[in-house]
């Protein structure tokens, strides 16, 4: 599981640093690795999952609260020195390190090397294991997280020692953006996951139905890593600010249906969070609102089942961030009918007051948009290496500042629209002259405001077609504005369907009752 996002790099302060002996292997760990190794060889996915999800956490809490696990060399003898197992163990080792401690530059570089070796083994198609989806997702998720962390770390040049700079220059391939993207791309391609998904849709291939597992004696590792890499690519592109390409990478996954991405809660949330965020930046507000709404409702209903898991904190954090993004989206595109009642009441509780102020579009609202965006946005990165010649400054905030600035610029352009909305809600017909007077602008300005409203509320979809996001419909006839009331249609169809199914259920139950 990726470490908490507000994770700060700093000098290592190991409480028991002096006590850490990489070669000491407690008995419980010996048992752990040898059992895990055996289950992997037996392809016993259920047991692997238990050990990975539960035992690893328990042992970490008990023995390795603030130290790393034993070194891979120390545990290798208990697993026949199996090369692939050691790569997997090291991956977990580094993940634990990132979560509980501060990695040094050397450790970051070593972790990169480990991922290279691990992915290369998988890409060569020689892996014959079946691993739980949770583990495979965590690998991709952590890979992208460590890349993000590295870019943030590298951009803080001010406090870098000469040693660190020398290491950075020497190992310029480590966490290089090309390397990261090409690995993800290679996993997608080599696994032929895109074709598999297409065939799966036509019923010619079993993938979604088996949750990605291979029941024909093969391995699920490459396929599922390829699948999750599409989400990984979406995430990396969002970090770079390329929302269009990010969404393109995700296209093969149909998010209107459950799929392998919904098998693992972390993957489900990451997918929808980034999908929604990308759509928000692309001004496709209705799409963003729809997806955030679905996801938040799902989390509300299911989070109790994840209370004990290591991901719980992350789930809660992303939940809060998505509420913030939903608040932003609804302030820019007031279409409350798209939001489920439960989600809406939560939203009002958390952001009700702020949303009212945001829709007022004054200086205060700017600050609120800034606050919510900054809280909820991804941790944008600068992918290029610094020039080590120039004076050492911290530039880790540059990418974020750019995205924020452009976002606020967009918000400002929509500033005048809320005034128009208020008036158009009240009138069904009004002359341009009158409305201009009420709004204290001249007619030409009013015309531009109305056209801006139309432009901003009619987004261009990915297929190039114009979609209306508008909450208010109007048109102008020479100098008269005609407002058309959009009736919130009652969803009779859904209601009847639900009642029919319910009644059938009651009748079936009644049939079963034996009268004494």
């Amino acid at each position: 599981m990726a470490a908490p996002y507000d994770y700060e790099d700093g000098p290592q302060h190991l409480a028991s640093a002096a006590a850490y002996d990489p070669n000491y292997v407690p008995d419980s760990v010996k048992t752990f690795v040898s059992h895990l190794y055996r289950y992997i060889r037996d392809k016993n996915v259920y047991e692997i999952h238990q050990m990975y999800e539960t035992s690893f956490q328990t042992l970490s809490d008990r023995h390795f609260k603030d130290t790393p696990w034993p070194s891979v060399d120390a545990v290798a003898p208990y697993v026949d020195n199996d090369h692939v197992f050691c790569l997997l163990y090291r991956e977990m080792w580094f993940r634990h390190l990132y979560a509980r401690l501060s990695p040094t530059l050397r450790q970051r570089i070593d972790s990169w090397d480990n991922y290279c070796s691990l992915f290369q083994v998988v890409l060569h198609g020689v892996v014959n294991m079946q691993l739980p989806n949770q583990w495979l997702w965590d690998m991709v998720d952590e890979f992208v997280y460590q890349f993000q962390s590295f870019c943030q770390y590298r951009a803080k040049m001010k406090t870098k020692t000469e040693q660190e700079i020398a290491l950075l220059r020497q190992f310029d391939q480590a966490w290089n953006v090309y390397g990261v993207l090409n690995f993800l791309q290679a996993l997608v391609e080599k696994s032929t996951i895109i074709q598999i998904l297409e065939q799966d849709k036509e019923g010619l291939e079993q993938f979604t139905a088996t949750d990605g597992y291979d029941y024909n004696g093969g391995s699920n590792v490459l396929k599922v890593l390829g699948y999750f890499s599409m989400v990984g690519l979406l995430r990396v592109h969002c970090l770079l600010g390329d929302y269009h390409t990010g969404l393109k990478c995700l296209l093969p996954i149909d998010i209107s249906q459950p799929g392998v991405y919904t098998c693992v809660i972390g993957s489900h949330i990451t997918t929808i969070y980034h999908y929604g965020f990308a759509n928000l930046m692309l001004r496709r507000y209705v799409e963003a609102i729809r997806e955030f709404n679905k996801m938040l409702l799902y989390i509300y209903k299911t989070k109790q089942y994840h209370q004990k898991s290591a991901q719980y904190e992350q789930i809660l954090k992303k939940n809060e961030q998505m509420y913030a993004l939903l608040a932003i989206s609804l302030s820019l595109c007031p279409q409350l009918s798209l939001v489920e009642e439960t989600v809406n009441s939560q939203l009002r509780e958390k952001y009700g007051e702020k949303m009212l102020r945001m829709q007022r579009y004054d200086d205060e609202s700017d600050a609120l948009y800034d606050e919510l965006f900054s809280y909820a946005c991804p941790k944008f990165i600068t992918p290029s290496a610094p020039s080590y010649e120039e004076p050492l400054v911290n530039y880790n905030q540059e990418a974020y500042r750019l995205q924020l600035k452009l976002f606020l610029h967009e918000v400002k352009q929509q500033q005048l629209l809320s005034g128009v909305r208020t008036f158009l809600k009240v009138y069904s017909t009004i002359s341009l002259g009158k409305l201009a007077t009420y709004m204290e602008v001249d007619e030409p300005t009013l015309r531009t405001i109305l056209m801006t409203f139309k432009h901003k509320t009619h987004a261009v979809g990915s297929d190039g077609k114009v979609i209306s996001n508008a909450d208010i419909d109007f048109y102008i006839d020479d100098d008269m504005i005609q407002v058309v009331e959009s009736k919130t249609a009652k969803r009779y169809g859904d209601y009847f369907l639900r009642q029919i199914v319910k009644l059938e259920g009651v009748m079936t139950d009644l049939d079963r009752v034996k009268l004494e």
Partner: protein
Amino acid sequence: MGREQPQQEQEGEPASMAYAVEQLVAVNPYNPDILPDLEDYVNQQVASQTYSLDANLCLLRLYQFEPDRMSTQIVARILVKALMAMPAPDFSLCLFLISERVQMEEQFKTLIVLSHYLETARFRQFWDEAAKNRHILEVVPGFEQAIQAYAVHVLSLTYQKTPRSILAEAINIEGLSLEKFLEHQVANCGWILEKGQGNGQLIVLPYSEFNHPELKKSSADNVPLEHITRIFPILG
């Protein structure tokens, strides 16, 4: 970096070059070696009045990865092309990938101002500013027509009937040229000319669900087939 293109290549079939580059972008986009091809493709888009968002974003990403190799001239062309793609948000998409420092350069500040005017439908200010910066815009053929198409698009979303003067200001055409333009639109795009207030002329724009909201299909109560299948067993 010396990248000399032999004359023959530039005179070669643009279509096959476009195809080759699109393939690169689809299959091998994270590759520093394709940067020169992408730059040539931008120039080809300008020359042949074609456009590819994917390829241009790919190039902007590569510039982001290796800022030393960035050509501001190419970036300016990409941005002008993106403006021409309005109402699509391509211009913003490109800006997301260009560092703040670079955006401070004069020509980019100008383009950002022009984009701002277009985004907020301030057509008069746009054409005034564009006239002052012909040198940036002239480089890309088809610019005027593209912006005029965008203006017509926004007008068509907003108006059922618009005064002639509003149209003229939005597309920056007057007098005889405007007459010719209107003739063409009436003949080919379903426009109708009516008599307006005073001596004015009203232009009736084509019907669409956007300026005729009653035409909007109510999708709110459509029930997808998959949901109906739930009750098939009950219906028997």
